[in-house]
């Protein structure tokens, strides 16, 4: 039994295509406004010549803020590290959507409840990979057991990512690499 499941996000490969984001919505028939996984241009600054992307869902933290603040105790952490939600309990107060440093919990205007990535727990039970991991075409997303994870060069956080000390998120990064460039505005 894995102790802490999480994601390894290889930002050196991520092309920001958003296949992972939409695959998740496809899998769970989410509302347009509800994105359990989100892909962003990472630290894009008009002045810098970098172009990197960050894909983040729920980090199934060691100390989940969502569980701490939820007034109805809807969030629990499983033995395998997945932080899951009892969706029936939710009363739609949206505190979790504010408390999560990573924006994992999302509020659905139609259902008037919050929800988030649960690491495709039912797919995992059936021996399938999470939908986002399955969908990634660039080898940028893998499901890992943090207790056994050891990729060379992988780090706990990247600059600009919220302070890991807050919740100790179960995510590891291979930081982005900027290749050689010949630009016309150098």
């Amino acid at each position, binding site marked *: 039994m894995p102790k802490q499941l999480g994601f390894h996000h290889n930002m050196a490969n991520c092309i920001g*295509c958003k296949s992972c984001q939409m695959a998740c*919505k496809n899998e769970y028939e989410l509302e347009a406004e509800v994105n359990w996984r989100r892909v962003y241009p990472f630290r894009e600054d008009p002045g810098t010549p970098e172009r990197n992307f960050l894909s983040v869902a729920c980090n199934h933290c060691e100390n989940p803020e969502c569980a701490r603040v939820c007034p109805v105790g809807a969030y629990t952490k499983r033995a395998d590290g997945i932080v899951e939600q009892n969706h029936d309990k939710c009363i739609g107060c949206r505190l979790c959507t504010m408390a999560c440093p990573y924006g994992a919990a999302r509020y659905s205007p139609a259902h008037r409840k919050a929800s988030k990535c649960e690491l495709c727990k039912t*797919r995992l039970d059936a021996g399938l990979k999470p939908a986002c991991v399955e969908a990634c075409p660039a080898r940028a997303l893998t499901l890992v057991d943090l207790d056994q994870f050891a990729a060379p060069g992988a780090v706990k956080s990247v600059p600009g990512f919220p302070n890991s000390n807050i919740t100790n998120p179960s995510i590891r990064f291979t930081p982005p690499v900027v*290749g050689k460039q010949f630009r016309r505005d150098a």
Partner: protein
Amino acid sequence: MRNLFERAGEVLLTRRTLLKASAAAGAVAALSGCTREPAAFQSPATDAGVQTFRTACPRNCYDTCGQIATVKDGILRKVDGDPLHGYTRGRLCVKGYTYANRTYSPDRIKYPMVQSPRGSGNWKRVSWDEALTMIADKILDLKKRYGSLLPLALDKYSGNFGIVHYAVEGMLSSMGYHTYALGTPCWPAGLDAQIYDMGAFMNHDPEEMANSKYIIIWGANPAWCAVHQMDIIMEARARGAKVVVIDPIHTATASKADLYIQIKPSTDGALALGMARWIVDHNLHDKAFLEQHVKGWPEFEAYLKQEVTLEWASKITGVPVEAIVELAGGYATTKPSMLWMGYGMQRHINGGQNIRAIDALAAITGQIGVSGGGAQYAHLATWGFNYHAMSFSPPAGSVGLKGPDGKYTNRTVNMNNFAAEIQALKDPPVKMLWIAGRNPGSQDPDAKDIKKAFESMEMVVVVDHFLNHSAEMADIVLPCTTHFESPDVNVAYWHYWMSINERAIKPMFEAKSDLEIAWALSKKLNQLQPGSCTYPTEGNEEEWVGKEFNQGIYDLFGIRDWKALRQKPAKATLPTVSWADRKFTTPSGKYELYSDKAKANGLPPMPTYVREMQAPAEFPFRFLTPHPQHALHSQFQNIPYMMQSNPEPMLEIHPKLAEAKGIKDGDMVRVFNKLGEVRLRARLTRLVPPDTVVTYESWYKDSKFNVNHTVAAIPADMGKLYTGNNGISFHDNFVNIERV
């Protein structure tokens, strides 16, 4: 009881409000919305009560995915990639994963509608019978007045590339000789270029890219437009390959390249020539290959030595000499090295010529017909179907355009100059348009003239899923099915696979496939005037899919029966390395650096430099409008998932240019030239060069935004040879900008 609530809860979801939920369920939903919480989220992958179907994405896309559609209780729950498809490998793309959202979009056209007056937005529902009667009456009326169906014009291209969708062309033919749009806006300059060079365009099996050690992605953006190739590129990388991207824009693909070269648009030929010069100077050309398999090397070498220097190339392309050296050195010495030319880079007045220059690099280094090498572009080797759906002739006694042999034919207009040419036709003029699998209102250059062209018609019929810019200008709109609702078969122009497209769900509302429309219209025409249409009046759609197959296809794909495709997709047994036998199908049988054929067609015989279009003084900035991330042209962007993820078009402007024009991030900007203007919000970024502004063309829901108000129908240099008309220089669009 729980199921009823579940169902009722589901009705709250936008998708399901489209379904014919019973009134009772609707009432319960209203009540239950207050008292019952929705069920927890369950993946259909773990639901025993689902059915799966093999479908195939019919979009105009390199990847043409094999899909698995998961259906429960007649509702499409989700769509995944087919794990048994060797290119799709079990995953779709950002667009593909929104297919359920698209199929059940609240904006889908549900039934035939008539708009009166045209363009007013005053739509009225009519029955199919009424719609078809109006259409048939008009067709017969035109035939009577003009003696032929030449006043009826078809504009169709690639909205759905399923083979059975050629029923539209068949339908038009079966009514009489008509006018139709000939050509393709996409890729024809490059097609001709490769034909002049090698005799045909035939790319390697794309999986070959994993064998390459140095991959140059030249003017292509697979991160957005051929995302399955990324896995293969990552595989190559894992095996030690270096990935180079040459692109005017720092694309998502370029962002992950080992080497990114930002080139001035339309100067790719000069860069390739510069590289060629360096390769020759350093004796890295493959003399044996040039001797045995290439025609025109001495002439081309002379040209290189006389006219091409690295400094010259650098000046034209904006690429430093140092970079050209690195590029040429890498390409020539890190073998096998592969070139992949995208379609965007040939949408220029010298596009075809530029492709020829890049092809030449592969010839010069002896890498044509080499695993992991070559100059990849496209192929059509797997499209040898019967086109049975198209195989119906005009009724006896039909009159058309008289050919030199005295036989009647259809009349063509240039698809790439549609607005102007359709209005210019006389004897007879065009009075009616049939638009299917195409959206000229959004995608054709010169949007204003397209509008005028539509306005000059007596009747415009548009067949589509959504009330897009073309439908908005139509008289009659007919709802068509998505590929989940009608069976078909699909192949690709990049990979070698074939996929069946099974019917996964019943047609939504009153939608009909193009084939069903053809049957129905034929029935109506023959009702009103027996013998006026030779198209069958009914049939079985699955059977008609079967009718497309022939022994050639079976042999090529190594299958015995098309129904076997229901179990898994099939791969063509073509050699994975094209031109391995070096038997080029040119007049000389060799790779032709010097092409008499090109010369005879008024083109330079060799891949010499042809100057890129210069910006006029009053419109000094190039306006690039490449393919978007969240859409395929005017498809997908309008649906809820995409509007949420990408709510509005942005104009990417370099900070230097923005500063010069007093434009701040988020300001509304007017982009204009002689033809027209577009207005959109500025996004300051160094992803684009200082003399170029960029936005990604698409159709946003409820938006008039259309870049084609500024794009003129400037022809590319090639395309006529293979497709009948030259391509369009979409990216030779010059504008000025100002803050609004």
